[in-house]
């Protein structure tokens, strides 16, 4: 069972619903270390990406590109360029195909990690969304089961509690960021979980 453009549309649709549902919780997390709007950015971004992807035709890459543009233009902020770059990189991996083997979603996760890292110039351990994307990408490339990839992302997000922010809006907090989750890492773990459902063949 391949991963088709319809599957990708369904994935974006699920991500939009998920972020809408988690909006206020993510805002509350961002209120503790940032400016309180991460849930809004993720909801607006994924809703716009979903709309753009739903209205787009063409290959998997075309859809990823449409999603990137939709997300970026609706949001800006930090999440906008990071997710836009992640989706563009994912599109490159997916290529001009109408469908791909589901297992290629492992490369998609890794490509998204690469996109975030390249755009954000962050390294793992700096208390950013990369701390979810990076362990997930490593697990995905290492052949881990979908649940294990999801768990790696979640553990990575959880581990941001023990990190002192070294980049982004919460960097200036210094030690005061300790004990708090990075909101971008928490939302990233949710995104990764939904991609892993698709990897598992469930969506």
């Amino acid at each position, binding site marked *: 069972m391949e991963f088709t453009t319809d599957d990708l549309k369904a994935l974006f649709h699920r991500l939009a619903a998920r972020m809408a549902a988690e909006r206020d919780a993510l805002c509350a997390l961002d209120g503790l270390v940032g*400016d309180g709007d991460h849930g809004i950015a993720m909801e607006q971004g994924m809703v716009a990406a979903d709309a753009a992807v739903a209205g787009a035709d063409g290959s998997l890459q075309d859809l990823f590109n449409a999603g990137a543009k939709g997300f970026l233009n609706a949001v800006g902020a930090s999440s*906008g360029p990071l997710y836009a770059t992640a989706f563009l990189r994912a599109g490159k991996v997916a290529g001009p195909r109408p469908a791909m083997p589901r297992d290629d979603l492992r490369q998609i996760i890794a490509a998204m990690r690469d996109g975030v890292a390249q755009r954000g110039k962050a390294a793992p351990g700096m208390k950013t969304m990369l701390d979810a994307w990076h362990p997930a990408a490593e697990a995905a490339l290492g052949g881990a089961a979908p649940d294990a990839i999801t768990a790696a992302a979640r553990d990575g997000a959880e581990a941001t509690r023990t990190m002192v922010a070294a980049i982004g*809006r919460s960097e200036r907090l210094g030690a005061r960021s300790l004990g708090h989750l990075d909101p971008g890492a928490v939302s990233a773990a949710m995104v990764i979980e939904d991609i892993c459902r698709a990897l598992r063949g469930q969506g």
Partner: protein
Amino acid sequence: MPTQKLINDGNAAVDEMLAGILAAHPDHLFRPADAPRAIVARHGPRPGKVALVIGGGSGHEPTFLGFVGKGLADAAAIGNVFASPPPQPAVDAALAAQGGAGVLFMYGNYAGDVMNFDMASELLEMEGVEARTVLTTDDIASHTDRAKRRGVAGNVFIFKAAGAAADLMLPLDEVERIARHANARTCTMGVALSSCSLPQTRRPSFDLPVGEMEIGMGIHGEPGVRRGPLRPADEVVDEIMDALLAEMGAARGDRVAVLVNSLGATPLMELYILNARVAQRLDQAGLGVHRTLVGPYCTSLDMAGASITLMHLDDELTRLIDHPCDCAMFRHG
């Protein structure tokens, strides 16, 4: 219960605000066709002139779009509330304002803004337009390393100096140099007395109990350097002025420009009470006051609190600060 705001749908707040601004200030501002989030000065942009393009998230009004006008910024790119604009509005603003002499982007130093404006610069390069960037970093509470600091209310002085340089038809190199120089000599520190709340959530973004204050809080509610019991105004000013004066290292006889800024909900009476003490402290330090601005210049939605900015003047900056400007929400000369 949602916080008390005069808004409609929170997601529409920025676009409705822009509609209200364009309706109020048609002589000063316009929006280019197909560029819903770019605001351009009616007078100001002209051939041969460096275009000063500023921008950032909404919720800081009159920063940024209130400072678009002849003698100050040529255009602004408008983001969602507390969110950097995406690259497109910055590109739209730059293309509408540029006069063939290059574009200078100026905005506060935030990760999101840097990523988006950098993408805008890349896009402009592809169009053959040279774009440079000067980040404002005046919030001395936000980092020990100047380059990593946030840009806050000092923007108004820093933009003003750069805008005057551009209005004087100086070349891009010079405008950029002056912008960096103005930024290097501008220091701000603030104090928050309440949380703001976003129009989309209408909940306090963070918890600041009555009776407490947070010194050094950012203009998006980013935590500051110290939280403690709310102190009398003079003590708050003293704590901030001690930090600003130490950072600035001015010599007796030097002159400064002063901004006592409301974070949104703090009214003029309180700002002027602060300024009474600021003036005393400057006098004690042997510093002359060239100009004082008091009011809401860089706000944080409905946050209560204030910030104090000092720009350490030299002859060049004094001339540029005195240069006339005529913006929808800020006029001088």
